[in-house]
Structures are given as C-alpha cells and as structure tokens.
C-alpha cells in the first residue's frame, strides 16, 4: 500500500527538526516502524521530518559514568559497539536480535524507544540497566528515565514537540544479558527479558508482559534474596499480568518470563 499524502522535509540540525515538529511534522528516524504503519495507514502524518541528516544524533561516546548513544544510532551499530558491549552487554545483545539484517541497518535506538512497541526488545534491555533518554524541545533539554518514558502501548511521556536526542546507558552493567522467545527469526518477541548484575544487585526487565516494559520484581527479590535461579524463575510471574492472545495464555507468558529471566541471569554471569 501507499502512505497517505504527506509533506517531507529533511532536517540538518536538531533545532530545525524541533521547529518542524512544532509545526506538526512527525519525526522520521530509521522508519522501520513508522513507515510500515504509514503504508498500512495506521499512521497518516500530514508531514514528516527526516532526522537522518543530523550528524550529531549518530554515535556512541563515554560521558562520565554513562555511555551516551545518539538517538539515530542504528541497531547494527549499537550491537557492534565496543563501549556498549563492555559496559551494557544486554543492550548490544538486544539490538543484535531486532528484526533482520536490513532492519538493523536502518532502525535506530531512539526510534525504538519513541515508538514504544510493547514487544520491543530495546526498551526492556535499557530498563534492565536503568537507562534514560535526553529529550529536547523548544524549551530545552530534559532527562527522562526509561521507566517514566514509556507509559502505555505505543505511548510515551514525550511532549508533542520533543524529540529524543540521546540515550544514556549507565556503566557497570557489563555482566548482563538478553534472552527472548519468538517463533520465527524476524518476529517480535513474545516475551523478552534483560538481566543486569550491577553493584546494587540484579535487575530484570521484561517486554511482552504488559503495555510497557516492566521490572520483574518477583524474580529480582528472589534472586537478590539468595534464591536459586530456578526458584527465582517461579517467582518471576508475581506482579505481572500479561494479556492472553494468539501467542499464548497469561500463565504461559508468566512461565516464559521466568524461564527467560533465569536464562538471561545465567548468561549474564559469563
């Protein structure tokens, strides 16, 4: 299908992009979520502003005790980045499994977060390490923790005239891993779990079990309290109530969350 009529501009700076967004344009990052939605007419923006020409939105660097990742950095670049691999391996692993080779070459970390798909892998991986985003609007910049960014299905707390410029990943999460289950290689995760073993204990976050990525409090409490991974896996379903659908029942998804959390925890130790 063909998207509905739209105006297209390509921004060469963040300010230019924000001006376009203020005027009503929808930001177009890698286009791997928005373009399919536009083709199916699930989204019909009257104007889009392409962020692909803004050099300062691309790249990864160290900034104090965090890694700063430009919002337009592709999944492929995130997956291969040595800094992210060293300090936040779970994020690199999640990026390496998004979609297919062609999608990873174009899809971006900022786009994934702004799209906020309830089965997205990156939001859960970034929640597991306690990451955040920097959003910029006409009034300036603000920091939004990932737990406060995604508020429901495909919904974020970004204002209409804000764009994500950077993703902030705290160092010290090298011992971390991502595990997911899906039926075909290119499918969205039915459930995916990121686990990070940090200085203040184990954090686990899941995708596919709620309308947003959520911490697996039951698993975390059990494993941090000295339980075995097997026992903690059984506790992973506490406090989550995944919606039953064609992919499986609520109970099945709770079970998956536990199995995947234990797998990721095991892998995180290596």
């Amino acid at each position: 299908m063909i998207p509905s009529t739209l105006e297209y501009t390509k921004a060469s700076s963040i300010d230019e992009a924000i001006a376009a967004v203020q005027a009503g344009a929808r930001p177009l990052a890698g286009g791997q979520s928005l373009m399919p939605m536009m083709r199916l007419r699930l989204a019909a923006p009257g104007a889009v502003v392409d962020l692909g020409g803004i050099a300062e939105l691309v790249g990864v660097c160290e900034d104090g005790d965090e890694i700063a990742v430009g919002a337009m950095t592709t999944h492929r670049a995130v997956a291969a980045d040595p800094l992210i691999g060293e300090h936040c391996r779970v994020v690199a692993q999640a990026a390496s499994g998004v979609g297919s080779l062609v999608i990873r070459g174009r899809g971006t970390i900022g786009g994934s977060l702004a799209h906020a798909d309830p089965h997205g892998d990156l939001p859960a991986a970034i929640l597991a390490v306690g990451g955040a985003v920097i959003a910029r609007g006409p009034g300036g910049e603000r920091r939004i923790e990932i737990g406060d960014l995604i508020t429901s299905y495909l919904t974020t707390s970004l204002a209409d005239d804000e764009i994500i410029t950077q993703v902030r990943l705290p160092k010290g999460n090298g011992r971390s891993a991502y595990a997911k289950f899906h039926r075909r290689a290119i499918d969205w995760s039915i459930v995916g779990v990121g686990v990070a073993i940090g200085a203040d204990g184990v954090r686990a976050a899941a995708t596919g079990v709620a309308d947003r990525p959520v911490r697996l409090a039951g698993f975390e409490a059990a494993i941090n309290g000295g339980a075995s991974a097997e026992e903690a896996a059984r506790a992973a379903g506490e406090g989550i109530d995944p919606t039953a659908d064609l992919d499986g029942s609520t109970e099945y998804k709770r079970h998956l969350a536990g199995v995947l959390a234990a797998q990721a925890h095991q892998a995180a130790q290596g």
Partner: protein
Amino acid sequence: MGQTITVTVNGTAHTADVEPRTLLVHFLREQLTLTGTHIGCDTSTCGCCTVHLDGEPVLSCSVLAVQADGCAVRTVEGLSEGGELHPIQQAFHENHGLQCGFCTPGMMMTALGVIEQNPQASDDEIREALEGNLCRCTGYQNIVAAVRSAADQMARS
C-alpha cells in the same frame, strides 16, 4: 505536490519528480520500470524488495523515494556487468538457489550485503543474515549453498 529528486540507480543518474509519499520500491518499479525489485508483502516481512542504498541493504518498501535523493541505489539489475553474471547470480544458478524466483532479487541483494559485511561468514551466519528474506519454494538449503559458494568465489577473486 511533487519534489524533484536525483537518484543514481545502477550507475545512472535519474532526475524525477515524485510525490513525497512515493516509496522507493514504487519509484524504482513504476517510474524507472526496474521491475526486478519485487513487492511480496505489506509488512516488512518478506525481504523481496531489498536493494542497496549507498551500499547498505535496505527494504525499499520502508524508504521514501525522497529519502534516496542524492544517494546511490543498486538493484538486482545492477548486479551483472558487461553481460557477465555476478558471482552471486552465477552461484544461485549453479546451486539451484531458486524455484519460482519471486524472492530471488531480494535474496541476492541481501546475500551481497552479508558477503560485503562479513566476507568470512559461516553457514550459520549466512542463515541468520537471511532471516528477513522469505522463500516459499526451496527450503533455503540451496540458497545457503549458493551464498556460501558466492562468498568463497568472491573471496578468491
């Protein structure tokens, strides 16, 4: 309201007026009549429409033609040179890497991307890299064999 773009496709610069909503795949097929690039789905699932945009394999159904302004596009028609089959085409031919051929243009363009990104790709890596390209005929064995053979051939030459 149209926008004027210039896209270099398989080495030839084309300047054209396009509606901003035109997908790259429609521009290639309908305005340039390069129908080698196929459309197999509406959900970014099949990989049939894979082309190279500035050397990167992309789904041409997920890129607007206006986004390709100033860029170089390579389609399946741009694989062979001087009447000689590209090593990937030759390998698909020799290994019977296709039956109906519908997925083949996308399969070959992804294969080229895999080989360029990872010339030493193992069979497992080749399989994983082709995960976004659906084939409903071959069962993939011969496709993987073809990409393996092409990678080896290209490494030698």
